C-alpha cells in the first residue's frame, strides 16, 4: 500500500469485528452492512437502538455494535414500541425476517404501523424460514418448493404470497414503504437510500416506515449465490414489485 492512499470504502465502524454465521451469499450480510453504513454516515451510533429478530439474524446483536435488544419471535414491533415510548428521542429500528414479520408477527406489525409508532422496520424477505430449514413463509411464491411444501406452494390450500408492505401502506400513519432488492450494486444503493429515508421519517417525526428488502437465501433456495441473486430479479420481483409503495412523508420525493 502506498502511504498516501485512503480508505474509500470498507467495513462500517459500527459493525462489530465478529465474522457472521450467515451462509455465503446470504442477503442478511448486505442488509447489515447498509444499516451500519448509515449509522456511521448519519452519526447515529449513540442514539439508535436496534431489535434483533428470531430468524437467521437472531444474533444480529453480535454484529451491530449498537445497543440492541432481542425480541420473541414476531414481537419485534412491540418491543420497539416499548423502547421508543421510553426513549422518544432515540431512533429505534426493528430488523425482521419474513417469517417473523409476516407469519407469527403479523398482528404486531399491523398494530404498530396503525399506531404510527415512530420506528423503522427493516424487513428482510427471503421467501422462506431460513433459520429453521427453509420452510414455507407467508411470502413463499406459488409453486416454490420448500421443506414444508414439497410439491411447491399450492395456491388453493396455502394461498398466494402475502405482500405485507402493500398491506401496511394502506394504513394512514404508515408514511413510507418501499421495496428494494439486494442484488446489484445499483439496487443495493437504492436499498440504502430507502433505509436512510426510513430513519429520517423517525427523526422528523413523520410516522411509521418500512423498507422491504428482497434478499437471497442461497442455502434453502438450493442455488449458488449468483443464481440466487438473479432469481430475485427475474422471478421474485414478479410477485414483489419493486419501488416506493407509499410516501406521504415527503410526497414530492416520489
Amino acid at each position, binding site marked *: 500500500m502506498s502511504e498516501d*492512499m485512503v480508505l474509500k470504502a470498507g467495513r462500517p465502524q459500527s459493525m462489530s469485528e465478529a465474522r457472521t454465521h450467515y451462509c455465503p451469499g446470504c442477503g442478511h450480510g448486505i442488509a447489515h452492512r447498509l444499516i451500519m453504513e448509515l449509522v*456511521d454516515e448519519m452519526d447515529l451510533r449513540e442514539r439508535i437502538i436496534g431489535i434483533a429478530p428470531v430468524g437467521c439474524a437472531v444474533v444480529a446483536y453480535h454484529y451491530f455494535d449498537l445497543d440492541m435488544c432481542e425480541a420473541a419471535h414476531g414481537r419485534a414491533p412491540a418491543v420497539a414500541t416499548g423502547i421508543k415510548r421510553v426513549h422518544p428521542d432515540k431512533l429505534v429500528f426493528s430488523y425482521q425476517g419474513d417469517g417473523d414479520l409476516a407469519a407469527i408477527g403479523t398482528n404486531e406489525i399491523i398494530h404498530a404501523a396503525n399506531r404510527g409508532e415512530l420506528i423503522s422496520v427493516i424487513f428482510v424477505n427471503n421467501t422462506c424460514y431460513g433459520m429453521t430449514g427453509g420452510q414455507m413463509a407467508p411470502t413463499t411464491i406459488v409453486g416454490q418448493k420448500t421443506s414444508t411444501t414439497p410439491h411447491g406452494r399450492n395456491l388453493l390450500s396455502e394461498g398466494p404470497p402475502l405482500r405485507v408492505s402493500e398491506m401496511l401502506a394502506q394504513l394512514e400513519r404508515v408514511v413510507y414503504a418501499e421495496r428494494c432488492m439486494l442484488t446489484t*450494486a445499483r439496487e443495493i444503493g437504492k436499498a440504502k437510500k430507502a433505509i436512510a429515508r426510513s430513519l429520517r421519517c423517525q427523526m422528523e417525526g413523520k410516522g411509521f416506515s418500512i423498507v422491504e428488502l428482497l434478499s437471497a437465501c442461497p442455502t434453502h433456495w438450493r442455488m449458488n449465490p449468483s443464481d440466487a441473486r438473479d432469481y430475485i430479479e427475474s422471478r421474485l420481483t414478479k410477485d414483489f414489485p419493486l419501488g416506493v409503495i407509499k410516501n406521504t412523508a415527503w410526497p414530492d420525493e416520489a
Partner: protein
Amino acid sequence: MAEIRISGYYCKGCGLCIDACPSQCLRISSSLNDTGVQVAEVVDGGICRGCLQCHAVCPDAAIEILVAARKSQKAAASAGSVGGGQKKSEGAAGDR
C-alpha cells in the same frame, strides 16, 4: 486507480464480488482460509476502477477499497483514514 483488499478472514467465497466487477479484477483463489473457504482474491494485474461495486455487493463486508489521498478527501473524511481504528467517524456528513 484504486487498490482492493479482501479480508481472508471475513470472505466466504460467495463470488458475488467477482460477478459484480466490471473490470474482471477478482477471482476465487485456490487457497483456503481457516474455515476451509476458498476466498476471493485480486487478479494479478487487474485494473480496478474504484467503482465500489464489489464492495456494495459483498455480504460479508470483506472488501476494502483504497484510493489516492487527494482524489477522495471527502470519502476519507466520512469513512476514516486507513488504519484509523477509532470507532467514531469524524464530522460525518450524513446523507441528508
